[in-house]
């Protein structure tokens, strides 16, 4: 049908040479052409944020960006957060320990969003993080443990103890 274009993507440090239709979204290219299905599609109109990935360090809705627009950038997905298969990223670890996920469908988007922001702003306060996290939708958790987990991760990333101090 439609003609395809060759495209070189750098995702999580790996090079992917793929052929895509010009209209293909970055999300579809990641999921189907690069085999990285951790990036989820919840609405495909840019509201839910489940497909959030980092493009050159900035959070992007992968459903609203064309794959060809990512040429020459460094893309990071949920699969690229942890340094290796034995270790979790502090945000992943905190989501696990603080029951920050239920069905897990929105989780990759929240993890990428929180990790990307905290890596640049490790001193973020809770109000600031709530503002950041309000970009994405979760239908299961009521956000309580997403906020709690994110703040625990922030403490870990600052080199502090992740334990929550008693809430007043």
């Amino acid at each position, binding site marked *: 049908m439609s003609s395809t274009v060759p495209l070189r993507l750098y995702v999580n440090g790996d090079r992917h040479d793929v052929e895509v239709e010009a209209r293909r979204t970055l999300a579809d290219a990641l999921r*189907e052409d690069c*085999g990285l299905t951790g*990036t989820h599609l919840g609405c495909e109109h840019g509201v839910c944020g489940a497909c959030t990935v980092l493009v050159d360090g900035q959070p992007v809705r992968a459903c609203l960006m064309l794959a060809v627009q990512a040429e020459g950038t460094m893309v990071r997905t949920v699969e690229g957060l942890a340094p290796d298969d034995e270790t*979790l990223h502090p945000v992943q670890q905190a989501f696990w320990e603080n029951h920050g996920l239920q069905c*897990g*469908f929105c989780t990759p988007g929240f993890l990428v969003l929180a990790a990307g922001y905290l890596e640049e702003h490790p001193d973020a306060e809770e109000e600031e993080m709530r503002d950041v996290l309000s970009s994405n939708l979760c239908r299961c958790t009521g956000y*309580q443990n997403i906020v709690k987990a994110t703040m625990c991760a922030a403490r870990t990333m600052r080199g502090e103890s992740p334990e929550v101090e008693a809430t007043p």
Partner: protein
Amino acid sequence: MSGPLSEPETWTGRALPRLEDPAIVRGWGTYVGDVAARDRGCLHARFVRSPHASGRLISITAPAGVTVFTAKDLHDVQPIRAVLHRPDFVAVDTPVLATDRVRFVGEPIAIVIAASESEAEDALDLIEVEIEQLPAVVSTAHAIAPGAPLVHDVEFPGDPNTVVDGRMHTDGFDDAFAGAHRVVSIQVSSARQSAMPLEARAAHAAYDRASGRSTLHATLQMPHVTRTGIADSLGLPEDDLRVVAPDVGGGFGAKMTLAREDVALVWASRRMRRNIAWIETREENFLAAWHSREQVYDVDGAFSADGELLALRGDLVCDVGAYCCYPVTWGVEPLMAMAELPGPYRVREYSVRSRGIITNKCPIAPYRGVSRPMQVLAMERLFDVAADELGIDKVKIRHANLITEFPHRSPSGLVLDAASHQETLAAAVELADLEDFRSRQAAALAQGRYLGIGISCFAERTGYGTPAFAARSRPFTLGTEQAPVITPGFERVILTMDPSGTLTLRIGAAPHGQGLKTTLAQVVCDELGLRPDAIRVIASDTDQTPYGWGSFASRAMVIAGGASMLAAQELAERLRVLAAERLGGLPVDIDLVDGHARVRGSDQPGVAIAVLARDVYHSSHLLPDKGDPALEAVGVYDPSGTFANACHIAEVEVDPLTGRTVITRFLVAEDAGRLINPAIVDGQIHGGIAQGVANALFEELIYDDRGVLVTTSLMDYLPPTVAEMPHIDIVHLETISPASITGAKGVGEGGTIGAPAAIANAISDALKPFQVGVFHIPATPHRVRAAIRSGTDLHVIPLAVPTPEPEKEAQR
């Protein structure tokens, strides 16, 4: 998580991090879309859907080269049919694809197949559908008006378009009602809502030429029942179909109903002998993936002068849309409302009429709480209004009417087991510090700020098995024909210990985010002295699990949990018998601890469970009990049900200029019995409350007067983000009821059930200076502002009935 010192010695009771999570946080989960993405050669399907609410299907034409199937191609496919055995129930067929009529916007008409998702979408635009429009019925008032167009051409025993008409009237009702000091009458209502799981529907049908079998991966809560439904429609033996629900991205009830699209997909896959995927768009999910909550309840409470509720009357109307959901039917909302309206309150005399009325809108199906959010809204608004009219304190009037003795038989015949209704109310009120709030409220009012507080108490019926579902139908006997009704209820598990001493638990329940694999592992490991990482729980695959009813209605922890406990106890007993033989002593003297069987009180190391397991399989000729040369136990549990209970208190601030409500504090006193995993319990409460907040303030599916859904994106339909959610404080009480063998009560729906009423009461409290109250949800800013400006209560505004003689609907 609390530190090791405060950890209980059992696995149950611990906030154990979930076994499911390490893979999911890495992005290694497998959802249906991932199955499709990894199947490079699979075809893709899209559905042609009706753009009209009602019409006659004249023709469907597609250009050459486009693969499309319509009802004509599916002529040998049986329609979907779900029924209840009761005289007021009207049954209809749901064709898999629309035949000669379309009955709601979004109804599937044809399935288009192409090589990729985008090509399927391109092909969709090439298909021409000719429909002769017919008058649509878009409100219940219109639907039951004399001469209204019929949504289905079937016999209605009562009013037109009325498919369920349940009634109940206790003997002493008339006298109690007539003799009351005061009758308080209110009408409450809710807009339509979508369960809106973040993963919309999705399915991948694979066909295996060698065996002739199909495998359907779909995002489901009831894999076994889905297999039955599809096999019935396609005329297949169930063995020819394997249904798998891999990781499921949320369900909330919306994925327990058989999807017409899934049946069509399996049919097309078998016809083409190819793998085909269908990934629903968010727009389709809003249009066609089940709605709920569009209900109007007129309720009259007859009170004594000191606030005792002497008699309760209800006229409950549920708009159930255009088709009957399988398997629980369109009786699900009205019949639950009829049975459970009195909730945790002592109601001696009860008169109720509860109707399901069909319209040309998307069919309803269960959504978290089903009709209980509305029941609780009705009862809790009633008590607040009665307290005001009678001059009684709002806490006192509830204490005076909450049940205190158990088991308690409700006027509709439900038996409420041991619970703590009075105590949860007291605990929540103490947490709220009402005196402090009233002084803050007065100080704020002096500055022109409007604060309010609202209470809601409820009983959450959970973990109900076959007896509860059987009660929805008249009794019937089994004969030579297939039984007329599908009656869900039991759960069955198979627990196997392999020769290395590790466990596999196969369950009929089908988790979709509840962490059930973790909590069942906790229950089983306590019986067997093993660690949760020594057990693999297998669920949601009809080839690998015993027939079960899946996960819905806050049942899995109670019923599958009970069945798992029974299986583990049986297996533990066998291990004790085997160990006693070689360690000396009686089986009752053997403890299973830390992977070993030991004689109680002895300092000997005992025997490793792994050794016992190995010997059962590999030295079976030496087994002392001459038993089964395998370690396997089957657990079956089918309880009649147990009631969790809670009290919610919401504090709000309402801006009278914009009508915007901000929830400033949310308190919960919950009694879910024994908490198997407290973190998971709190997570269920948090998430439930978010959906209750959504119902109370934000989410609304809006149809225009021609029956076209106008809220089809997440820009129009507004689930709360973290910015709209308050911090939630929870305290737990623990009533151990014999109605659940694990002691656990279900807790999946309570948040959604209780929150709307607490919020509506809180807004009404805040708006007291304006003398207006909230009786319709969502209480959106424009509605609240209009109520303040007009000085009239916030009620539903009914659509005009387009008949020659419009019937006036009473506005109270």
